[in-house]
Every structure is written in structure tokens, then in C-alpha cells.
């Protein structure tokens, strides 16, 4: 013991550095926090101002006007409606499809592992580029999907360029990109479930639908919840796919929150309205992510406890 103590070079200097060290090490993280918080607070200030880039002289605080005017603004209600519709549709469909695929691939075999690796590819494709790929495939002139649609009797199916099918088309691209994400999470969950309950059920000759609804699904719930909230937070903020595909059009069919804020900022240069839109979206995601973080921390504790 004495030898160890004497090996310490400078005890006093060491003690000071030990207290400071964590702060020094986490400084970058702190700086990023500040780097996020400053623009965030700026956005809050902007949202209470009448601020148009085209009329800088008329910039002044109008306090809640940006928010109050939303109540009577049909464009805002359209934004809210489309955003919720988009998020709801994509998450529900991706969850069902992802769960189905995960169940199909559950058994560990060379073929199943190979397929699950292949399914990573859409997820690794940049969403903006995925939208471009689908845009090429749904081109009315030569797109292969337009051709296939005409084969099954849908003559002149306009995909993203018709208001009635635009939402369907971007949801389809979203499903293509993000279903593998849910599939991977649920597959990891399915494969990590303890085997005893299933063996016991098989021994007792319990019907498989009963096993699925009473054993598999409840045990998988934490994974399903996590995947759902993760996707929900992402989906309600979708920008890349919709902007790359239609830029919010045709008309204002697909002006979800972020697209509408982007257009407000860069096209109508209405910074105040754009900031107010972002604050409302932030409030929605904050509410959702609080639910998520609480649930996630609990899961983490449980994972630690079992390990």
C-alpha cells in the first residue's frame, strides 16, 4: 500500500484536476447544448414578433398575434391535420408491417438473416434520395409504377401530382424507408424473449393465436412502444421525403409543419409565423418525447436489472 501511495506523483494537483476533469471532458456537449439553446430561444423571440425579411423596418413585437391568428387560419388547421394524418398513417402501417415481417423472420436461419440484412438497405438510403427514386418510378411519362398501375386498370394514375393521391404516395415512400427500422427493433426484441413460456405453451398444446396474443405480444410491448414513439416523433416532423417529392404540393395538400415553416421562411419570408409554427411543433414533440423518455428510462432500468 505504501508503495502505491508513494508512486502518485503530485497528490494535490491530481485532486484538483479530478474535480475539474469531468467538466473539461463534457465541455463540447455543453457547447452543443448552448449552440442549440441560443437558436431555440431566438425562435421563441421571433415567434412573438411581426418579422418579415422583406420588411425589416416593420419588425416589432406583436406578442401573441402570430399564435392567435392560427385559430382563424385555415392554412394552419390544414397543416395540423395533414401532419397528424401523415404521422398516424405511417406509424400504424409501419408498425403492422414491421411486426409481420419480424414474425416471418423470427427463426434464425441463413435465409432469414440474409433477408433481414437486405431489408436494411431502404433504411440506409437517404430519405430525400428515396423520394427521388420513387419520383422517377412514378413519372407519368415512363415510370414503371405508372405503367403497372395502368395494367391493373388505373389509367392516368397521377401519384404525387394529384391532390387525391399525393398523401398516399408520400406515405408509401415513408413506409418503404422506415418499416425496416421497426422490423429491426422488433426482430431484436422477438429473438431476445425467454424461451421457457413458449416451450411450456407448446407442451400444453396451447393454440398459437393464444400464444401470440397472450404471451408474445405482451412480452414484446416495451419494444413496440419504443419503436412507435421513436417513429411518431420522427414522422410528425417529416420534411425530407415530402419536400423532395412535392415541396408541399400540389397546392397545400402536403404542407406539414416543417414544410410549411420552410416555405414561410424562404418564400413568403414571414419569419414570425414560421417560428410560431416551429414552436407549436416543438411543443407537440416535447409532450410526446417526455412520455417516451420516461418509458425509455424505465426500460433501461429493467434491462440493467436483468443483466
Amino acid at each position: 500500500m505504501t508503495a502505491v501511495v508513494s508512486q502518485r506523483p503530485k497528490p494535490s494537483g491530481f485532486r484538483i484536476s479530478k474535480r475539474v476533469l469531468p467538466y473539461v471532458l463534457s465541455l463540447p456537449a455543453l457547447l452543443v447544448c448552448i449552440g442549440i439553446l441560443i437558436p431555440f430561444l431566438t425562435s421563441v423571440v421571433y415567434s412573438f414578433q411581426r418579422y418579415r425579411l422583406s420588411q425589416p423596418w416593420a419588425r416589432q413585437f406583436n406578442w401573441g398575434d402570430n399564435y392567435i391568428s392560427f385559430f382563424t387560419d385555415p392554412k394552419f388547421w390544414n397543416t395540423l391535420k395533414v401532419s397528424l394524418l401523415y404521422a398516424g398513417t405511417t406509424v400504424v402501417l409501419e408498425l403492422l408491417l414491421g411486426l409481420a415481417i419480424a414474425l416471418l423472420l423470427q427463426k434464425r436461419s441463413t435465409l432469414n438473416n440474409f433477408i433481414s440484412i437486405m431489408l436494411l438497405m431502404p433504411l440506409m438510403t437517404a430519405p430525400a434520395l428515396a423520394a427521388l427514386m420513387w419520383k422517377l418510378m412514378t413519372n407519368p411519362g415512363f415510370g414503371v409504377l405508372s405503367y403497372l398501375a395502368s395494367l391493373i386498370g388505373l389509367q392516368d394514375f397521377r401519384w404525387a401530382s394529384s391532390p387525391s393521391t399525393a398523401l398516399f404516395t408520400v406515405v408509401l415512400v415513408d413506409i418503404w424507408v422506415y418499416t425496416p427500422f421497426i422490423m429491426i427493433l422488433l426482430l431484436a426484441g422477438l429473438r431476445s424473449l425467454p424461451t421457457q413460456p413458449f416451450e411450456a405453451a407448446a407442451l400444453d398444446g396451447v393454440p398459437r393465436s393464444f400464444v401470440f396474443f397472450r404471451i408474445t405480444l405482451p412480452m414484446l410491448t416495451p419494444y413496440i412502444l419504443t419503436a412507435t414513439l421513436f417513429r411518431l416523433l420522427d414522422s410528425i416532423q417529416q420534411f425530407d421525403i415530402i419536400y423532395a417529392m412535392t415541396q408541399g404540393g400540389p397546392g397545400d395538400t402536403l404542407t406539414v409543419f416543417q414544410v410549411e415553416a420552410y416555405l414561410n421562411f424562404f418564400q413568403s419570408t414571414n419569419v414570425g409565423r414560421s417560428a410560431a409554427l416551429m414552436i407549436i411543433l416543438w411543443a407537440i414533440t416535447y409532450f410526446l418525447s417526455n412520455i417516451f423518455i420516461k418509458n425509455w428510462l424505465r426500460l433501461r432500468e429493467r434491462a440493467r436489472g436483468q443483466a
Partner: protein
Amino acid sequence: MEHTSLLERILRGAALTLVVIFFMFPIVWIFMMSFQTNETILRIPPQLIFEPTLANYTALITGKLITAAGTLDIAFMRNLWNSVFLSTTSVAVSLLLGVPAAYAFARHKFRGSEDIAFTLLSFKFAPALLVLLPLTLYFQKLGLANTYIGLIWVYQLICLPLILWIVRGYFEDIPADIEYAYRIGGHSWFATFRKIALPLAGPGIAAAGLLAFIFAWNNFVFALVLASADKQPVTVGALAFITSSGIQYGQISAAIVLSITPTLALALYAQRYLVEGLSLGAVKG
């Protein structure tokens, strides 16, 4: 053990085939389009058999598109280089800053550490434009608009939280006793970090770095808002490409193939790390 009827096996096989077709078809189709001339692309019904040509790729790589109307300059190689440079540098900077910070968060509970961690996590889910739109105005004032440094700085918002959260989880899983033992042997804090903690968290760092690279490469909105043509990565460049070159569908397909190949290749090469990172980032932390 498990008795599956023939009918069920057929149904399962059919379902899996449909799944594979749905998820693979767009990639295969765009890949095929990239080897076709505009003439064969525009033919109806679409052709499965055609004479492959490398003309689209040579046009992109040489930057010269020869059409009947004359020669057109394509800056796509520039976009590709921007993507490589921005993603690599951002991830390198993020790892340099983020791994020690993750270690501090995992090992030392200090005042405010949970607050910082919580802020980062909750803003990971905040809308990107909320932060980006005021930043564009700041960047114009600071002279950072349309510079690599400004972009790399902003890309830290993508990479750093990801690396912090995934790597922190790995550091927490290393028993502290191993490190104490090494410290008692008379080694410095830094030696312990380098010789014990870093190698043990190696797979986690690799997974986090890989994911951060893919997210940086695939990012669209940051560069759309903050970069103009000469600094744009492929995601934004490919979009501009469509409008500038009109109806050169073969080249657009080739550009998409070149843009998605790096992330797909990385994902296939290191899929084990990737799946681990994705599930950890989501479930465990």
C-alpha cells in the same frame, strides 16, 4: 417440435417474397435505369432487357454531358466530394469531442451532468428547422453561411448526441472495478481511459461512428438551408440536378446510385454493428 403444414410454409414463402420484392424493387430498378440511355428509359412498356451503357456514369465522372443541343456541365462529382468530406470530418470531430464527454457522463456524476444529458436527449427529438432557421440568420452575420466550417459545426447537432448516447451506454456497462484495479497499479487517468476503457467500448464506438456517418451522409435539411451549390452534398445536389438538367433520366439514376452506394456498402459491410447501434440507441441508450 414445431409442425408447420405445407400450406403454411407456402404462404410464408409467398409473403416473404412479396416483402423482398417491395423493398428491393426500387433499388434494383434505379440501378437498371442508370445503365440505360434516355431512349430505352422512355420506351413503353418498360424494358427488362436492354443493352447496358456506361454513358451516364462517364458523363457524371467527366462532368460533361454531351447532348444534341450542346455540352452541359455537371457538378455532381463536386457534390459527391462534399458529402464525403462533410460526413467524414463531422464524424471525426464528433468522436474526438464526444467519446471523452461520454466517458465523463458515464463515470463521473457531477452537478448538472444529468441536465446536460437530458437537454441533449430531448432536443434530439426537436424539429430541425426550429434551430436551423435562426441559425441561418446568425450564420449570415457571423460569415459562416456557406462555409465548410459552419456546416461541420451544424452537423455536430446530428452526430454528437448520437455518439454521446450510444457510447455512454457502453462505458456504463464496463465494470468500474476493472478501471480501479488499473489505477491502483499506478497508471494515470488518461492511461486508464486509453488502455482499458477505450478498447472495451470499441464496438460501441464503432457502431456509434458508423451510424453518425450514415445520418450525416443522409441528411438533407441542414445543407438545404445552409449551403449553396458549391458546398452541397449529394442529397441536396441530386435534387437540384433534376431541375437543372431537365430530362436526363439516365444521369439522374446514375447520380442516385452513386449517392446511395457508400451508405449501402457500409451498412452491408458492418451490419452487425449497425443493428446493435440502432437497437441500443433506441432501447438501451
